[in-house]
Every structure is written in structure tokens, then in C-alpha cells.
């Protein structure tokens, strides 16, 4: 459905997009995951023909994307990072305005607007102006304005930034609902938990290129880490650290400020083996946790950095 080929964009000397390649299929929730500055928003901007790009090819619904390709634009709904509504219009009027830019028939538009308000849960706020809404409610309004016209493709650029957990959950649920109703969704975020929660496929971006693409499971299989074991409040000697390093299936050990982090490749009983060693050495320790690999681990292993610093 959407094809981005060899996209290159520079801001002066800075290379924002470095031969980015993406393919998104109809019906999926596609996540663009990456730290701040990795080029996610720039990619979206180019995709929507808001930004000029230096090289590359962008196709949506099989057609080349240009600023005046109104047929394509009519089928896209956008929710950008910053709230983009009219301060002087009420909630209802804002949604009505934007829906009206896509849907011409009056009755249909009215119905869509009502449904959008219900969808985001703003029924009690219809007549209020944006200034009177809290951050979470504003975001909901922002979303309503973007999806009221029931677009085929919805692009969301970090829609949950600075949003309270309750609203955030509602938003994520809403996105899944929209997807169920038939919309393809491109979702950018730097919160890996969100990506893990709702995205069917994820592309991890860094420095303007996609460094890994696939489903959650595919991505996690790309890395060595099968399990990450953390032990707190532990006192170790350097020799003991080396011993732990030598345990079967352990491939990375980190010991800093009394916290031990052990990464093992996927195998059974990793934790048991390590705890046995502790017992043998009569080492005392505090809290123990074992985690399956996260996308942060994927990012970490591939780039050597954390997703969020």
C-alpha cells in the first residue's frame, strides 16, 4: 500500500533521512520506533508531501505522492505531534471543520462528526473551547479531527506525548479499534511499550535509516538476548564477575553500582544456573528479576544505545 524507496533528506549539512526504505501493507498497524532525532517525523513529513526531499520515491495506494494529489490526500487522516486545532472554535466545530474538508455531503459529515466525538469520548465537552480542555482531552480532540472522515490510512506522529496514563490507554485502545474497522495505521513513537502493545509490524529507526523491520517476535529473534536477568544489591569481586560471564548461554555481563545485569541467549534454566552459582559462592543479594527481551534490547544491541536516554 505504501512504498518508500531510498528516501534522502538533508537539512543543510545534517542528513535526516539516509536512504530510508519502508513498505507498509494494507490493514496493519505499522510502528516507526526510534529515539528523538532518528528521523521519524521527517519521514512522515516527506510521506505527506509537506516536506521537500532530495532523493527517493514515495508511493501511496500505488500512486506517486505529490502535494496536489488530492485523491490520495482525501483518504489519509493525520494526527501530528502538536495539537492543531482552532482556539476559537468549539470541540464540535473543530471536528466539523476538518471533516468538512474531506466529506462534502452534509448528512454524512454530520454523522461522521457525531461518531468521532463518541469515539474519543468527548460527548460532554462538545461546546467547550480548546483552552478549557486538559492535555489529555486536547489530544483526544486532536485525534478526532484527524480521523473523523474515516480515512483508509491514518498516520499518527507521537500522539501520546505528555498524556496521562488513562487517556493514553484509551488512545491505544481506540487505535486498535480503528484498525479493526479497516484503517491502516502508521504509528510513530519512542515508547517501546506502546509499539509492543499495538503494532503488528515495527521498523526501528536510527540516524535516518531503518535498522530493523519485522514483527515483535522477528525483531527479538534478531538479537542474541533471550533473557535479561537483573540482580540488585549484590557485592561481587572481579573474579566472580568473570565466572558468571563463563556460565553457559551467558554472553554479556554488566556490573555497576551494586547491580548485576546478565544477558543470556535463549535457553532454559538460565536463572537457575546463575542462582546456583550465587548459592555456591554464598553471595547475598537483593531483588532479582528476569525479563524477556524488549525492543529496547533490540535497539541496544543493534546500535549500542538506549532507545530513551
Amino acid at each position: 500500500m505504501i512504498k518508500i524507496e531510498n528516501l534522502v533528506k538533508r537539512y543543510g549539512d545534517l542528513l535526516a533521512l539516509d536512504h530510508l526504505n519502508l513498505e507498509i501493507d494494507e490493514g496493519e498497524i505499522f510502528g516507526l520506533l526510534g529515539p528523538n532525532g532518528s528521523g521519524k517525523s521527517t519521514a512522515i513529513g516527506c510521506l505527506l508531501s509537506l516536506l521537500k526531499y532530495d532523493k527517493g520515491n514515495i508511493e501511496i495506494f500505488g500512486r506517486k505522492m505529490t502535494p496536489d494529489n488530492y485523491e490520495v490526500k482525501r483518504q489519509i487522516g493525520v494526527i501530528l505531534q502538536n495539537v492543531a486545532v482552532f482556539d476559537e472554535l468549539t470541540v464540535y466545530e473543530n471536528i466539523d471543520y476538518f471533516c468538512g474538508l474531506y466529506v462534502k455531503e452534509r448528512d454524512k459529515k454530520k454523522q461522521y462528526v457525531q461518531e468521532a466525538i463518541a469515539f474519543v469520548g468527548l460527548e460532554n465537552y462538545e461546546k467547550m473551547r480548546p483552552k478549557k480542555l486538559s492535555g489529555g482531552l486536547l489530544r483526544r480532540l486532536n485525534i478526532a479531527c484527524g480521523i473523523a472522515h474515516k480515512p483508509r490510512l491514518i498516520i499518527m506522529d507521537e500522539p501520546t506525548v505528555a498524556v496521562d496514563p488513562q487517556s493514553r490507554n484509551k488512545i491505544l485502545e481506540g487505535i486498535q479499534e480503528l484498525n479493526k474497522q479497516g484503517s491502516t495505521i502508521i504509528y510513530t513513537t519512542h515508547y517501546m511499550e506502546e509499539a509492543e502493545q499495538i503494532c503488528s509490524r515495527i521498523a526501528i529507526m536510527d540516524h535516518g535509516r531503518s535498522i530493523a523491520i519485522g514483527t515483535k517476535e522477528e525483531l527479538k529473534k534478531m538479537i542474541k538476548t533471550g533473557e535479561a536477568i537483573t540482580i540488585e544489591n549484590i557485592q561481587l569481586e572481579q573474579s566472580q564477575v568473570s565466572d558468571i560471564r563463563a556460565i553457559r548461554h551467558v554472553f554479556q555481563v554488566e556490573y555497576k553500582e551494586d547491580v548485576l545485569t546478565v544477558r543470556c541467549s535463549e535457553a532454559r534454566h538460565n536463572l537457575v544456573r546463575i542462582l546456583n552459582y550465587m548459592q555456591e559462592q554464598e553471595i547475598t543479594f537483593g531483588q532479582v528479576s528476569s525479563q524477556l527481551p524488549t525492543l529496547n534490547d533490540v535497539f541496544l544491541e543493534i546500535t549500542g544505545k538506549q532507545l530513551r536516554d
Partner: protein
Amino acid sequence: MLHLLKYRFKSSLRNGSSMFWALLFPIILGTLFYFTIGKMDEADFSTIPVAVVVGEVSQEADNFQHFLQEIEESDSDIIQVQYMTEDVAAKALEEKEVKGIFYTEDQISLTVAAKGIEESILESLLNSYVDSAKMMTQIGQIHPEGMNAAISSMSNYQNLVQSVSLKGKTIDGNVQYFYALIAMACMYGCFLGFDAALGLQANLTPLAARRCITPTHKLKIIASDMFGIFIIHFVNVSILVLYLRFILGIGFDGEMGKMLLVSGIGSMIGVSLGILVGSAGRITENLKVGIMLGVSMTCSFLSGLMVGGMKDIVEKHAPLLNRVNPAALITDAFYCINVYDNPGRFYRDLGTLAVLGILMLAGAYLIVRKECYESV
């Protein structure tokens, strides 16, 4: 399109304080003008205080004092006479308690400390006395037989001057302040245009970015915004014109229709200027506002807002400025409508205004219609 316009109006009109001030401040200024300038011809002379220093007693001195007394007692209330010694008088003159000192010695003389109208009146009184006295002497010397007739004529002082007015509708030069005020109000549409620009340029606000992504042709959005704002501003300016004409009674004796036409074009220029400046690239918002203020105030100043005759001075020294300054063109067009019917000049002004308006509109459109940006 209607959909866009409807929301443009709603959005603009609800911007309470903006609307309030855009409409109200020219009206407040106009009212202030009315009270300061409009009432100026009703300003009367205040009575002029003058000191008299009596020197040696003489016939001449006596006659003159008699003369002064007559004037003081007449209805005209021009002067108020105080008799002082020389020192006291000199001090009074320096401290501006009197405007002049008459010394009644052998020769009557006047001493003043400045060159204003009041001093001129005192001088003129003295001249009148001196001339009359001289005249009597001359008649006595040359045609003594006509003395009686002369005295009879003198006591029968006639007003030999009749007031007439020129053919034009009004020559009240103070009206030009009001024309300049309307011109300034037109130019101030730039602030409305500025706000509109912010909502149209995707690299300026998120709202604009969202509007640029919609399938509505950018041209439609721009047109509806510009048109909506223009209408609002034009209504504001029209209210001002009507207020001045019908409530304050300023002498706009010409056709109201033509005046509104000129105001309309002026409004368009103001709004376009705002859009032009608002859409400009890499300068801060404060600087943009500063530029708009600077341009509109300078244009208004040069068209005679603060100093009435400024436009005329510009005409004498740099006439080209008057041909391109929109405020000057607007005031000139008003002059043609209300003061002296000069169709040729009027159409020239109107034409230039229209061209300016179209140029600015085109410039504004060219900048704003950009769909793709270097960065957002």
C-alpha cells in the same frame, strides 16, 4: 468554499479582543480628533493682557490712552490694560504675565517678547492708532476743508470686507486629519492579515500544517481566508467611516459610495500587506510585527496623520512617494471625492491603489501557496 468561509468568520469574530480593538481604536482616535481638531475653529481669542507705562504727560499720550480705553470697553474684549511702572512692566513681560508693553511718551512704542499672534494683534492696534493720527494730521495740512467729511467718515467705520466661500464643497483643512485616520485604519488590516498568514503557512504553525495536508486545494483555503478577513476588515473600516460621517458629523460631503469603494481597496491593501509580511521567512514574529507597525505608521505619517500639511510637503520634495504610498493615495482620493470634484485625479488614485492591491495580493498568494517546505 462556503464551509471554509463560515469557519473563517466564526474563528475571526470570536477572537474577542482582536475584534474589539481592530474596530474600536480608530473610532476612539476619531472621537479624540473630533474634540481636539474639529473644535479648533471655535477657539476664540483669549483677552490679551497688556501693560501701559506712562512717561511724560503729553497730548499724544493722552490721545493714545483714550484710544486704548475705547478698545478695552468695546464689545470685542481684545485687550486688558494694566498701568505699571517701567520695572514692573519689564518683569511682567519677561514672566509672560503681559504680552506687550505700550510706552506712552512722545512717541508711542510697543515692546513685545515673542512673535506670536497676540503680539501681532497688539502691533496692529498700534498701527491703527498711528495711521489714524497721521491721517488726521495730513488732512489738516492738505485738505483742511474736508476735515468734517473725514471725521464723519471715520466715525462711520464700515465693514468693507465681505466673506465668501469658494466653490468647492469644503475648504476645511482639518478634515484631512480624518482622511488620514481612515487611511491608517485601512493599513492596520495588516494585523488581521498577519494572523491569517500564520494559519496558512505550514512552517509557521501546526494548525497550518494540518490544513495543508487536507485534500482541499490550497488556493481555496487561501482565497477563503483572505476573502473572509478582508470582509471583516472592510466592515470595520466602513463602520469607522459611517461613524465619522453620521455621528460626529465630519464634512464628508461627497458620495458615500465612492468613499466606501476607496476604503475597500485600502482595506485589501492593508490585509495583503499583513499576509505578505506574516508569511515571510526567517525572521522573528516580533520583528515582523515591528515591520508592519513601522510601515503603516510611516505611511500614515507621510499622508498627514500627525502634521496636517505633511502630504503637501512630500508633494513638494518627493512627489513620487505620494504616488506609491497607499495612505497618501487614499487621503488624496478622499480629497477628490469630498473637497473638489476632480474625476481625472480620482481615477488615477483609484487605479494606482488597485494596482498596488493586486500586486500585494499576488505577492502574498505566491508566498503562501507553497505546498512543500524545506522544513516544518
